[in-house]
């Protein structure tokens, strides 16, 4: 059975390759749910413009990395950059596509979005399961005068591997030594408390449904779905709102020029107006792709997105990449990708 199936697939595969080159190109990407809203918007517009379909499935950054390594997709998208050793081992290259912010999202009746103030230490204590009530002293101290209910806190985290989790736990590790030693950072960690939702979508859905809950999601998810989000005290000690301006302030402190393979995390950035949990997302592709045509179309897609997709990105509260960075990426394509 095994053999016959293999040969049947091989024949059919050969047949389909002929069909595929004839019409418009369909490319497939998978990974980060952080960038799903903006990529799917770009994709619909790009399809109208060129007829090429970019089929992007939001399966989590870990999944994006796994599937690009397995060669089952044309590009992976991850909010966690790969290190140089892994990139070299698999012959992969990576470049950023968009910058955005992660916000602590909560559902406490009576407290509106953008009113609750948190700092890194308190946030990590909440996710450690140490601060368990909304009217705890730690939260009250940051929010003088606010009426905090005596409600239990329910932590909502990601149940899948995720770059959002990576950036979030990276930030918590930066601000809390306890978090660093007890939990650590990663695309998935051993959560000390709470329930898990699948994707940014799942976490937002749970936060929306459970009273007294707190989670972390990409800003656009909180905004579009009318979920309350907290404002944060940043590394400079200033309380900032999550918005394009503060994400940009964090991105501005980034030194992309010296970041090899664009590996650079911008959480807990020092700028006075910088949003502390700002994250970049990367696209990962083979440098010597098996299907050159698909990789070319993927580059066309992102090139088009850097140029024409800025307004879409802004409308979804992402930060488009600065022009200098785009130029750097285009050079990277020319020098690193052999096609």
């Amino acid at each position, binding site marked *: *059975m095994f053999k016959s199936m293999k040969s049947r697939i091989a024949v059919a595969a050969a047949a389909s390759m002929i069909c595929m080159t004839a019409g418009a190109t369909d490319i497939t990407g*998978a990974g980060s749910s952080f960038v799903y809203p903006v990529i799917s918007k770009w994709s619909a517009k790009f399809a109208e413009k060129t007829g090429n379909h970019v089929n992007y499935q939001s*399966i*989590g*950054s*870990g*999944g994006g*990395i*796994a*599937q690009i*390594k397995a060669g089952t997709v044309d590009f992976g998208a991850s909010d966690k950059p790969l290190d140089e050793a892994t990139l070299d081992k698999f012959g992969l290259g990576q470049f950023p596509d968009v910058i955005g912010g992660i916000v602590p999202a909560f559902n406490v009746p009576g407290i509106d979005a953008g009113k609750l103030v948190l700092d890194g230490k308190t946030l990590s204590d909440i996710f450690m399961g140490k601060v368990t009530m909304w009217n705890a002293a730690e939260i009250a101290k940051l929010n003088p005068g606010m009426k905090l209910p005596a409600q*239990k806190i*329910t932590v909502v985290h990601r*149940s*899948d*591997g*995720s770059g959002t989790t990576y950036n979030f736990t990276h930030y918590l590790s930066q601000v809390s030594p306890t978090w660093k030693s007890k*939990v*650590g*950072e*990663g*695309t*998935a*960690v*051993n*959560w000390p*408390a*709470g*329930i*898990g*939702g*699948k994707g940014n979508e799942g976490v937002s859905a*749970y936060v929306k*449904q*459970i009273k*007294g809950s707190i989670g972390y999601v990409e800003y656009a998810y909180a905004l579009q779905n009318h979920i309350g989000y907290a404002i944060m005290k940043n590394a400079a000690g200033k309380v900032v709102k999550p918005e394009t301006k503060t994400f940009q302030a964090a991105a501005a402190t980034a030194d992309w020029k010296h970041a090899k393979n664009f590996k650079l995390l911008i959480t807990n950035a020092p700028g006075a107006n910088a949003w502390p949990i700002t994250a970049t997302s990367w696209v990962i592709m083979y440098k010597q792709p098996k299907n050159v045509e698909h990789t070319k179309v993927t580059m066309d897609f992102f090139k088009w997105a850097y140029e024409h997709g800025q307004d879409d990105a802004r409308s979804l509260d992402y930060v488009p990449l600065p022009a200098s960075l785009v130029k750097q990426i285009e050079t990277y394509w020319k020098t690193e990708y052999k096609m």
Partner: protein
Amino acid sequence: MQANRPETAARDIEHRSRKDARHDRIFRGILRFCALLVLAALLGAALSTLWGGREVLFKDGFHFLTSDAWNPVTDNYGALAPIYGTLVTSIIAIVLAVPVSFGIALFLTELAPGWLRGPVATAIELLAAIPSIIYGMWGLFIFVPFMADHVEPHLADTLGKIPFIGAVFDGPPLGLGILTAGIVLAVMILPFISSVMREVFQTVPSRLKESAYALGSTTWEVVWDIVLPYTRSAVIGGIFLGLGRALGETMAVTFVLGNSYNITASLLMPGTSISSSIANEFNEAVGLHRSALIALGFLLFVVTFIVLLIARLMLRQLAKREGK
């Protein structure tokens, strides 16, 4: 066909019967091959999960079963939390579904008027036809808020205050959690258990029941003292079939279980199960993490296999008694 001479006719017949025999052999060969495909599909599925999970199963061995860690950062995996969640939700489902199924079977075989039996039995079995994703949606959007607003606060306030038992019903009323998953599972396996019970109840010879009625037994006594002992092994078999279903259910559970790897005594707290762990994490997992998930799949296979084996043996005992 001119078979004038007897030898030609004989040769003709012999030739034909040889041809027929050959065709029959080929035909049986094809049939047998298809039966072997069924076999291959099952063995292949079981072995491929064993192979895919080998890194974890053979490296950690027994430790994998008993460890409650599930830490992708340190690549340290234990199956205890998913196993615990799977077992507890399935047990809740069985505890709730068995008495209700028994009641349904009793109603349909002894109480309902003839015209009502067919339609009601069909309606109950339609519960089995509803896709599990629909159970998941209903569970998440309708049943979870219902549990959070109307059931769990009362449970926590009443049963949760009792010492010892209290811990089982303590916790915030999330709606999501082990208890909710167990109830949804109970509804899903209800039709399976009740249809087996109904069918085996019908196999009880009428003269046995009639004799009991003639001696003045009540309906309850006939069912409890005559029907149930007569069909006991098959009823247990049916329960195990339902258990097999509950253990492997994925989508509905994934929506309402909460996906947390913490093992807690409270049924109101979220948990995880083998199949929902796989559904949640498989696409994202790499290396040892993926191996651990496939190993979980293998465990699920083994457990389901044992449960169904028991079910079959029990059901066969009844078939034997019937002389089949």
